């Protein structure tokens, strides 16, 4: 079993990396590109099964910072 934790900057937080990537996309001919935001995906192997409550705790307290980021937890069989 695996967990995928997606961490994204909150919409209100400046994301200069995303803005720079959007600019590069425009240079590549994607003229109508909208806002681009860059986050991260953390893949966690769970040979012992998933403790969902603990995974949420870890996602909230360690893998993301709730002041600037939101996370989404997905469990994969």
């Amino acid at each position: 079993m695996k967990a995928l934790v997606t961490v994204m900057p909150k919409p209100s937080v400046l994301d200069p990396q995303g803005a720079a990537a959007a600019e590069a996309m425009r240079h590549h001919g994607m003229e109508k590109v909208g806002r681009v935001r860059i986050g991260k995906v953390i893949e966690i192997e769970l040979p012992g099964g998933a403790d969902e409550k603990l995974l949420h705790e870890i996602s909230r307290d360690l893998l993301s910072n709730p002041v600037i980021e939101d996370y989404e937890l997905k469990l994969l069989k």
Partner: protein
Amino acid sequence: MKFAVLRFPGSNCDQDCIHALNAIPGASADYVWHKDTSLAGFDAVVVPGGFSYGDYLRCGAIARFSPVMKSVREFANAGGPVIGICNGFQILCESGLLPGALVRNRGLHFVCEHVNLRVEQHDSRFTNAAWTGQILNIPIAHGEGCYFADDETLERLRINGQVLLRYCDGQGRAADEANPNGSRENIAGIRNEAGNVFGLMPHPERACDPLLGSTDGLHIFKSILNKYEG
């Protein structure tokens, strides 16, 4: 007054802090390894700059869980003065000892330069040796120093006088052109509500010797040494 200078794997301003503090009359400083759990005998704590744990995950995110941080929290809760510089500021924010967070610089570049800082409030444990409106020349060196807090938090910081330093130009104006990293409201340093925890991105320890171009950093350390009644 005895200062504890914390050392995490990847700290790299710890020696500068020790050097700067030991040169100040009335101050002495010693290292405390991040796995130590006692701060007994120390009167103040410095969380120095660097790249603790390689800045992996987020700056300060892993250092926050080091054993010594539990003692730092207890030390702070008991009213002991704690100052976090650069990565130390990031660690204190990640720990929840200070509000807000530090994110990637607006310009994406690592910035390493002397900046002007306006003292917003001299009535504090960390700025009482300066005067309100004084401009301090202190270097910065960071890639993730853009201070972020939501509107509500910013308002609380303003109302409580918790913003101690803002980036400014040579005339003391907190202009956008003088903001090196995109920090909200040009914030360079804040204190907690109780007034005994201070975090700042600039490096006062690198501005304590005329040979380094400025001695303005001494205002910060000397403030901690002063008797401050609040």
